[in-house]
């Protein structure tokens, strides 16, 4: 393989000989382009090229540009490769201009997208509610086996995780609060601090985060894949409503399972707290006494009611993300992400609303 360039009376002649493979093309690419750049008359002599692959052809065509005079390869094989390469490239077409950067336009687009997204979510919520209302008088038409399966997947299999997190949170809360409270000799109030914050806030919230991460994402991925495989359309054509068939059992299962998960968090958290209290020298009876005296059933029930609402919203957002997924493997990943992110955001917003509500109601 050899390449030489020489200029005589205003014309530059580039001569390639021998075999021109991908490795040669990579090596010569810059050198050859430098030699050809800015020349008014270019003669590209490839007559001595004996072997050529696509990369070599790309080098020749790119160096020649549109203006150069050609001497084609004499070798039939190389000429064939070059001919095919040119026919594949076709007519040189103008490059598409890149979209200009318009910050205000793209901001507006993003806002519009969000509004549109909200609208489809609302539509979906409406559809779900309508289906639920239609099924309410005939509850046997719901697929209870599916509900049980999802209860198992979202609930039974999450118990271990919930118990572990519950104990840890109880221990951490009790231990952290014991440090400042010791300064006032107020360690005896740790049980009600931990107890109330767990049952009213942290129990339902953490259970919700677990549900969004485990179950919301699973719903989105499962339904997203079903949509990609046209299973959702298949259900529809068989006269089965995907809402009743796919969405309702999942949302119902999420709603039913959340209070249980929250309760598991509450109980194990209190056990963790009791453990720390025992280390601080308070017997279980004293801790129990404090809890019974200061906490009401309302604290627990309010938390569990909140948890059920969280479950509803998380299940619903997960299903919606799955059913509105686009095509392709990335779409399923996006759906799972938006299920988790949307679920957790909705969880916190909803918790805020509940805080105001409970305050107004004096609960």
């Amino acid at each position, binding site marked *: 393989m050899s390449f030489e360039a020489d200029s005589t009376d205003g014309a530059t002649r580039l001569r390639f000989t021998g075999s021109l493979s*991908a490795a040669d*093309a*990579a090596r010569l*690419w810059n050198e050859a382009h430098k030699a050809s750049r800015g020349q008014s008359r270019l003669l590209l002599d490839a007559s001595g090229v004996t072997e050529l*692959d696509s990369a070599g052809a790309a080098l020749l065509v790119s160096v020649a540009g549109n203006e150069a005079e050609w001497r084609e390869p004499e070798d039939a094989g190389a000429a064939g490769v070059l001919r095919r390469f040119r026919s594949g490239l076709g007519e040189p077409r103008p490059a*598409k201009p890149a979209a200009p950067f318009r910050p205000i336009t793209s901001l507006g687009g993003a806002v519009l997208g969000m509004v549109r997204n909200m609208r489809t979510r609302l539509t979906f919520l409406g559809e779900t509610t309508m289906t639920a209302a239609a099924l309410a008088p005939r509850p046997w038409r719901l697929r209870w086996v599916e509900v049980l399966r999802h209860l198992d997947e979202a609930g039974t299999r999450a118990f271990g995780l919930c118990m572990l997190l519950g104990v840890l949170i109880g221990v951490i809360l009790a231990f952290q609060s014991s440090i400042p409270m010791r300064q006032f000799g107020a360690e005896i109030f740790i049980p009600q601090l931990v107890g109330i914050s767990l049952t009213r806030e942290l129990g339902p919230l953490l259970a919700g985060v677990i549900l969004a991460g485990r179950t919301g994402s699973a719903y989105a991925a499962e339904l997203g894949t079903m949509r990609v495989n046209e299973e959702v359309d298949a259900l529809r054509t068989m006269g089965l409503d995907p809402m009743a068939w796919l969405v309702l059992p999942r949302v119902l299962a999420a709603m039913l399972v959340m209070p249980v998960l929250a309760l598991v968090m509450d109980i194990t958290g209190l056990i963790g707290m009791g453990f720390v209290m025992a280390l601080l020298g308070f017997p279980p009876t004293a801790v129990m006494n404090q809890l019974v005296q200061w906490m009401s059933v309302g604290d627990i029930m309010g938390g569990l009611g909140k948890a059920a609402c969280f479950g509803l919203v998380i299940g619903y957002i997960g299903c919606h993300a799955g059913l509105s997924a686009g095509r392709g493997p990335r779409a399923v990943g996006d759906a799972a992400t938006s299920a988790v992110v949307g679920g957790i955001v909705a969880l916190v917003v909803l918790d805020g609303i509940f805080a105001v509500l409970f305050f107004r109601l004096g609960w």
Partner: protein
Amino acid sequence: MAQDVVKADTAKTDVVITAEGVAMRFGTNTVFQDVTFEVRRGEVFVILGGSGCGKSTLLKLLIGLMPPSAGTMTVLGEEMAKLEGAARRDLLRRIGVMWQSGALLGSLTLAENVMLPIEAHTKLPEAARRMIAMAKLGLVGLSDAADRLPAEISGGMLKRAGIARAMALDPEILFLDEPSAGLDPITSAGLDELILSLARETGTTFVVVTHELQSILAIGDRCIMLDKEARGLIAEGNPKHLRDQSEHPTVRAFFRREARAGV
């Protein structure tokens, strides 16, 4: 007699794939055994057979995704299953595979998909890679779709894009898995024509796995036929000869599209 020996010798140098006594077992389930054949340079070689006969498994063995349970298989003179590291990369560079559903990466445009193997195996700059990709996409008739994502194009276009990507490095052997599956007859015939013209013009060897009768007769220089019940080869030769002359009941049924009990 002497002439025959010479002929065999020259033919030997032009053999790109050999399989000798190849068997594949999963546990106690034998997919096929005693499979022996060779593929010659520049021909369109068709592997055919009904569903579940191990066509796709054989293809996986050929491209080195898994080793055979018994027997030896060489591609371009090397035993793929035993190669590692750089030697394996070098051999992979010389073959191209079009997967049944295209198997294009969903997050990359068609042009970027075609550029991918070029980037992996050469040091060519971006401009060169893009130019090669455009030429290959042009050859399969997809110049206008170069900047679109796989999710935005039709099944036939996906397969053509898969061929463009398989050809990116000018491979010596191109493996095509079910090129006609899921395509209408017109698109499928167009794909057959594309395969034929590429085979004739570039001298690339094609190994095509298919069960599409029209395709087999249109493009196949030679074929082998696998059978589920025989657990191995039941026929070898030119597809048209097989259609007209084979005595084997399954082969006859296959070419005449007859239903047979138990299939």
